[in-house]
């Protein structure tokens, strides 16, 4: 049996949701009853901190309050029902969980991965003099790392033994938190009783107000000079993901950024475009853009990666006929452009 402290730390686990379910609390009471004042405060903090900072601070609230603030926050996010908010919130809950998970006991980690997320994982029993503690069946691994495209997550750079990918504790915790993020994105909005809306109206309005301020403009952005329509399918799809505020992995951001800069888009225009990212940070983004332009450090102006590199990073999407004839996305652009002009 696990204690309340554990459930408060990991409110997303099967055990926690089971515990909350048997308390049989009416969601209307959560928002109206005086007894839940602290729960409401903590739940609101979960939502607002996610929205504003992309993370949730640890607060030493009482365990039951901490635990109940989780379903409360999820109700709010569901009622607001906005994809941007859901992604921001999912990311922040995942980051919060990661902070606890990296310090967690090995068997606990394993239990969470198995019981809550149904992952095919085990402890490494082979007597390897290597730093690996966990192993995960490769299909689960591939599924979870699909959006983590840093080079060390590539399967070729992992130790694969009889179908299992070997993992360090830190990596394992990272994958659990990635799983939580995806699960949250998938589950929200929750299907809720319509009657709840009236009770939660004030808080939902409040979130909406902040959301409107924070949320980047989602207008489809078509710069005049750079002819986006002539971009290859890979760049169009990356751009689409950027505009939808999806969390595009590092390699993808680099590729689309270098591409846009090379076809003549201005830094400010690109920054406006990227403000849709769930983890947008203007200062950082500007610095990175200037770096790619060659304004810092090595003064090298970067070109977007070639088709074969894009393929390696799984960024070559929906290639069309013209793609068969070219080896670089900029060649595609130039050919297409000359084709439309002539």
């Amino acid at each position, binding site marked *: 049996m696990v204690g309340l402290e554990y459930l408060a730390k990991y409110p997303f686990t099967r055990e926690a949701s089971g515990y909350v379910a048997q308390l049989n609390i009416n969601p209307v009471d959560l928002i109206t009853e005086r007894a839940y004042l602290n729960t409401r405060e903590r739940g609101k903090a979960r939502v607002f901190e996610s929205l504003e900072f992309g993370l949730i601070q640890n607060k030493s609230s009482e365990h039951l309050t901490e635990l109940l603030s989780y379903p409360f926050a999820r109700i709010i996010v569901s009622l607001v029902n906005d994809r941007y908010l859901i992604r921001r919130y999912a990311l922040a809950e995942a980051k919060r969980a990661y902070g606890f998970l990296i310090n967690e006991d090995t068997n606990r980690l394993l239990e969470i991965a198995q019981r809550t997320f149904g992952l095919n994982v085990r402890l490494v029993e082979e007597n390897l003099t290597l730093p690996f503690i966990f192993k995960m069946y490769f299909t689960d691994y591939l599924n979870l790392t*699909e959006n983590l495209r840093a080079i060390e997550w*590539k399967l070729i*750079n*992992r130790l694969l033994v*009889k*179908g299992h990918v070997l993992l360090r504790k830190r990596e394992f915790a990272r994958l659990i938190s990635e799983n939580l993020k995806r699960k949250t994105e998938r589950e929200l909005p929750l299907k809720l009783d319509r009657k709840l809306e009236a009770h939660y109206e004030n808080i939902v309005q409040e979130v909406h107000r902040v959301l409107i301020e924070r949320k980047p403009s989602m207008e489809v952005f078509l710069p005049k000079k750079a002819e986006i329509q002539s971009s290859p399918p890979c760049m169009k799809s990356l751009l689409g993901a950027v505009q939808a505020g999806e969390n595009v992995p590092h390699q993808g951001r680099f590729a689309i950024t270098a591409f846009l800069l090379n076809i003549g888009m201005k830094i400010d225009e690109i920054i406006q475009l990227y403000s849709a990212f769930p983890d947008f940070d203007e200062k950082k983004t500007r610095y990175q853009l200037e770096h790619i332009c060659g304004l810092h450090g090595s003064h090298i102006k970067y070109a977007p990666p070639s088709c074969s590199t894009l393929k390696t990073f799984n960024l070559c999407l929906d290639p069309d006929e013209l793609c068969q004839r070219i080896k670089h996305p900029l060649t595609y652009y130039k050919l297409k452009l000359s084709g439309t002009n002539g």
Partner: protein
Amino acid sequence: MDEITQKFIAKKFSEYYKTVELWTPPEFEKREFGFIPFGGGMMIRHRAFQSKIELQNYLQRTAPAHAYHSSAYYQNPSASTMNEKRWQGADLIFDLDVDHIDTPCKQVHDSWSCRCGYVGKGIKPEKCPKCGGTKFSELNWLCDECLTAIKKEALKLIYEFLLNDFGFKENDLSVNFSGARGYHIHVRSKSVRELSQVGRREIVDYIRAEGLFPEFHGLRKDKGRIVGPKLTDPGWRGKLAKVALEFLAQATIEDLKQLPEIGEKSAAKIIENKARIIKALKEGYWDALPVRSSSHFWLNLLKIGAVKLGGEIDQPVTADVKRLIRLPTTIHGKTSFRATQISINKLEGFDPLSEAVVFGKKEISVQINEAPKFRLGEEIFGPFKNEKVVLPEAAAMFLICRGVAKLNGKTNI
């Protein structure tokens, strides 16, 4: 192909389909089928069948040059758009083809020609050396040497990668001779069915050693020494140790000088100290090299060596989740050979040029344009050039399907 020859082939194929014990993929009713008719028509796609007999009747009636089934499972396999088909997963497929391997015999039996008229031998180049064009027409042939080379690749893929690293069981794998120049391996375990295109790409990269960084495989500085993977390590660690050891064991001064930053002097020193370097490597120490930057040396060597050790698989086939793949037990229209299933323990001794041959010994007269020497079963034929020859049916069918022979007008069909 002239009309009489085409009719003859169709009749022969049809006879085969009348009596053959046709193999069909599991969950048959969820598969899409596709066919290419003789005479180069469009592919007929989006076909589904309710029973094996229905499919067999279809094959007998239409005698197609090529028959395929989808690696994917669909709710509505006969729908014409992906959306309506409703994808429910797909087998994991590996395609190994001689086309991707540069065997020396290709210089003898394969040729290509560019639109500009330039002609060359062997594998086609990326660009025509004369005009820079990238479209070529190719003439290629099947020979023992090529077929043995690709079989070795198949064995490596199965044992090194699929059974060992990926931990599949022998009965998860179905191994097939493609009927022409390669092998297809189907993995039908439930665990792989829902892998996305992205996930399948990762498997391709793993096998081809694409994007490999030795730093992630244990090559590192530790307390002033360079330590690295050992031969006994699993996965790519062991393979990298093998790459290094095998390279060193065979390396000449010339080989070493091919590596960046290695000159005549360093190369000679390495050769002199070979035994000592190899001994240290076997213990996991990678710093017994008498050169200034050992880690650079290894990184360069491993990146080149790993790609060679990797498997030569056709990338898009494995990455695709809606591929059509040749239906085992049907005839390949460019060879007249059967796409043949082989149990893994028989693969090493498998001889496609006898075991996949469908047609028999009855004699047929054909007019041959040009064909190099070839073997079928225990018999050797050719070479032929502009001649009329009487051949056993198997050899005649093979040449006709290769597109280098036609029925001699007088043959009675």
